[in-house]
């Protein structure tokens, strides 16, 4: 057996395969398709204090090699997550659970982190400051470095759990953003979130999505994600969860080579629900066949 354990600062994963927030439900929905206990970690759908209905439809459009979504952080709220969803994940003892919080204000994020800090089944908290599909908070946070600093520090203060800050590549300077998050107390960075895009309905002479803009994901954004991870990995010292268009084990290896320590699978979970589990096996097979280990997967100088 090849060693696949990875240490992301304070967070230990049995392997580097993670699932991305909003693309894997609460994990249990995928239990029909794979053994979720074999994954490194699952990231839960973003949660807010109160339930959110989300954006008006249409919410989905296909694009060449990708899709756009305008879900708008629809979720049941923190109470339902804690009372009825997290208990269901107790049965899976090896996979780590990352709870993703997306409050619209500093205060809401602090409250969410405080609540989740009390829950044993939550192994890490991911602070989503990069959702392009909401009017308040979301991506606007990422574009305001002093705000990123205040937010990260405030959340850091109320939880001892490993803190992941999730970044967008749709900012003027992602390295500056990453450094701000690290200096403010992030243990781990995850990147990238979806990229704002647009579609047009010709027949209606109108923008396809009600909010106009929507978030692009999938293989279409992989080159952008690889560069973002590369740039950030060059300039910060904390672990990185890389994501954006991962569809195959080769993609996983590419993210690891440019500096990611773990790799998250996003929209391809919709296309092939069993994919994340397959990638766990395929990565082991790749390491065996190539004679590499996770620590030798680095770009040549």
């Amino acid at each position, binding site marked *: 057996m090849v060693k696949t354990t990875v240490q992301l600062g304070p967070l230990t994963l049995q392997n580097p395969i993670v699932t991305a927030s*909003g*693309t*894997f*439900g609460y994990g249990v*929905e*995928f239990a*029909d*398709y*794979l053994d979720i206990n074999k994954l490194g970690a699952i990231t839960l759908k973003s949660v807010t204090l109160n339930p959110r*209905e*989300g954006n*008006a*439809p*249409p*919410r*989905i*459009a*296909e694009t*060449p*090699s*990708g*899709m756009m*979504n305008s*879900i708008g952080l*629809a979720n049941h709220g923190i109470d339902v997550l804690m009372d009825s969803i997290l208990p269901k994940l107790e049965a899976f003892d090896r996979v780590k659970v990352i709870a993703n919080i997306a409050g619209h204000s500093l205060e809401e994020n602090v409250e969410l982190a405080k609540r989740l800090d009390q829950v044993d089944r939550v192994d890490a908290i991911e602070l989503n400051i990069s959702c392009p599909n909401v009017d308040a908070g979301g991506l606007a946070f990422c574009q305001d470095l002093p705000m990123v600093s205040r937010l990260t520090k405030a959340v850091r203060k109320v939880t001892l759990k490993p803190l992941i800050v999730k970044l967008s590549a749709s900012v003027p300077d992602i390295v500056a953003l990453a450094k701000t998050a690290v200096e403010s107390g992030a243990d781990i960075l995850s990147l990238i979130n979806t990229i704002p895009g647009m579609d047009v309905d010709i027949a209606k002479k109108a923008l396809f999505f009600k909010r106009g803009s929507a978030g692009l994901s*999938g*293989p279409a954004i992989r080159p952008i994600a690889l560069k973002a991870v590369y740039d950030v990995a060059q300039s910060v010292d904390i672990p990185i969860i890389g994501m954006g268009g991962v569809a195959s084990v080769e993609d996983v290896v590419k993210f690891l080579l440019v500096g990611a320590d773990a790799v998250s699978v996003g*929209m*391809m*979970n*919709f*296309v*092939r*629900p*069993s994919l994340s589990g397959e990638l766990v096996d395929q990565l082991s097979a790749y390491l065996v066949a190539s004679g590499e280990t996770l620590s030798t997967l680095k770009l040549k100088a």
Partner: protein
Amino acid sequence: MSQRKQIQIGTVVGQSEVAANTFIISIREPQLVRQVKPGHFVNVSLPSRTNANLLKRPFSIYGTDKEAIQILYKVKGDVTTVMTTLQKGDEVELLGPLGNTFTLPKKKKVLLVGGGIGVAPLIYLYDRLKAHNEVKILHGVRTRQEAMVWANLPVQTHVDEEVGHYVCAGFEKVIRQHEAQHVVTCGPIPMMKEIVEASARAGVSCEVSLEARMACGFGVCLGCVIETKSGYKKVCSDGPVFDGALLW
């Protein structure tokens, strides 16, 4: 533990054009055939299109034949255009059965109303209802070219450009004429809305099958919601079959 669900590889066993730009394709996948019920849909992708068109395409079950499922489809865009070129022996990826199912009444007069390609799931429903119910099917199409030939099926075809929007307008009268006790409809939204409202006025239950843009098809992306009287519902997993009264 229950058996793991997987993407299945089905093999095309045949396909034919049955009306303008409208095809029936048969795909062999024995496991799926054993599981499907009227109302279910399957998510289809073509191996030759997996990079260009990532998202699977949802199609209702039109019928089953031995070990094959049948899909009645209309050419719309990228994937349905390529689908028409599939030949016997070609492989397609299938995920399903997905969604909920139609109610199966017994000893009732049932009226099935399909608009355009929306007739597809109703034919499979008819097949499962006919033994225990008195069933009639109305099929509304816009042009004569879209009309289909229905062998051995009690279908009345209405061509809009010849007789006007007969299927919709005055639908309450149609319900009374047929003495229908249960109505099921699938087609364009304005048509379904009329029919739901007419059924309510006539005091008859009415189920509808809806469409929405989908990414996953199994309830996790939250992309396929429609507005109902009790908030947003997911077409793929709360539906595609809904009680009309919940919608309009």
